[in-house]
């Protein structure tokens, strides 16, 4: 049986991890490669690297990082943050990224999804969608959630799937950072309406939230950052608990 995936997300700035990292036995908490290795050893199913730097050097730094990560770990990883062209995607995949995550650029130029899927295959194209509820309607937001659009979450999700996206990473801005659980109603509706895998993001606070998002939310994978980085939830323990709840999980 295909298992549900647990995905730690690392925020990267100028080639270094940011946000609190609170692991024991880390020589260098800012080194993304060492962190990636630790998560792989803990049986994380995948990793996501999100580049939040805004320097001109960004592309090269990110490509170098991808190469180092690919050399160090033997589980799949996705890279996102500011990817806006077929060339951007090509460089990251050539350096060893398994998937790329595209967000704002796909909204601005939806044809980019078709082009990337045709050139590299749907399997490596993840479309990240940030959305929040406005007047009871889920609206897509851009630029890390700062810029609202008129796009409806579910319409956009269907469109990206149709254009060849292989997976959707849905972050609920209403839930992100609250530690109150994932946006399970919206996630379940996405799974019902779109026939590609859905990664739940935003709101993880305790182990039960993961149970809920895999059952009530029908999510295929769950992503979290700080609760893993601060060691509030340890991945081996989380996976054991999920297994005890009869959720298909890789131990």
């Amino acid at each position, binding site marked *: 049986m295909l298992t549900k995936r647990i995905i730690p997300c690392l925020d990267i700035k100028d080639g270094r991890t940011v946000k609190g990292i609170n692991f024991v036995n880390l020589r260098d908490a800012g080194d993304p490669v060492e962190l990636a290795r630790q998560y792989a050893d803990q049986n994380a199913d995948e990793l996501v690297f999100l580049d939040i730097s805004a320097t001109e050097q960004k592309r090269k730094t990110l490509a170098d990082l991808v190469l180092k990560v690919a050399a160090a770990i033997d589980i799949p990883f996705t890279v996102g943050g500011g990817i806006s062209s077929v060339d951007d995607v090509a460089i990251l*995949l*050539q350096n*060893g990224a398994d998937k790329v995550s595209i967000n704002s650029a796909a909204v601005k130029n939806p044809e980019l999804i078709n082009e990337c899927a045709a050139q590299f295959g749907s399997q490596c194209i993840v479309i990240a969608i940030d959305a929040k509820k406005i007047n009871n309607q889920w609206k897509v937001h851009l630029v890390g959630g700062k810029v609202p659009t008129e796009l409806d979450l579910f319409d956009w999700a269907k469109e990206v799937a149709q254009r060849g996206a292989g*997976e959707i990473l849905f972050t609920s801005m209403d839930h992100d950072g609250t530690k109150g659980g994932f946006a399970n109603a919206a996630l379940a509706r996405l799974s019902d309406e779109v026939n*590609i895998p859905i990664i739940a993001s935003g709101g993880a606070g305790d182990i039960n939230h993961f149970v809920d998002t895999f059952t009530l939310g029908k999510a*295929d994978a769950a992503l979290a950052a700080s609760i893993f980085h601060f060691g509030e939830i340890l991945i081996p323990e989380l996976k054991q608990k999920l297994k005890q709840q009869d959720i298909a999980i890789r131990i």
Partner: protein
Amino acid sequence: MKIAIIDYGAGNIRSLQFALERLGVVGELTSDPELITKADKVIFPGQGAAKSAMLKLKAHGLDLLIPQLKQPVLGICLGMQLLCDYSEEGGVKGLGIIEGKVRRFSDRVKVPQMGWNKISKTQTALFQSINEDEFMYLVHSYFVPILPETIAISTYDTPYSVALNKDNFYGVQFHPEKSSKPGQKLLQNFLNLTV
């Protein structure tokens, strides 16, 4: 040991090369027929669509070369599917080494299958010391049904082949280079194979 990785512009080769490096060998990316023919082991990777992959193979004459190879050959993902004689993906002819038709998963399940799935296997050298019910990482929309050449099975929508073997030709649907320690073990087993 000389390892040739067939170069026809197929996706993420870096990870495969790094995985081989971790095993202490170098995988040389090449489309040179002579280098491929002389290698001790040949790896035939694949990613993307069947049709464009076959076109690229033909452009290098590799569609004729690969079936003639005598050393152990390992097709990975699309590389395994192309060992078969036909794919529903674009309605293309494969290399025809193994008789079988590659099919698309039905809409009863999410497509692509993406993630770690359990495999059950037969007793073959390729899976030596790999546990029954081990997890491997898969990402694919098309699958090879169960065939006489099937040496490992997984289930998604329906039971299907995750590994094939005929003579010196082997194929795995999962990505051993991305499947943690069990995947590394499989690559080591492949390197240990003799014809």
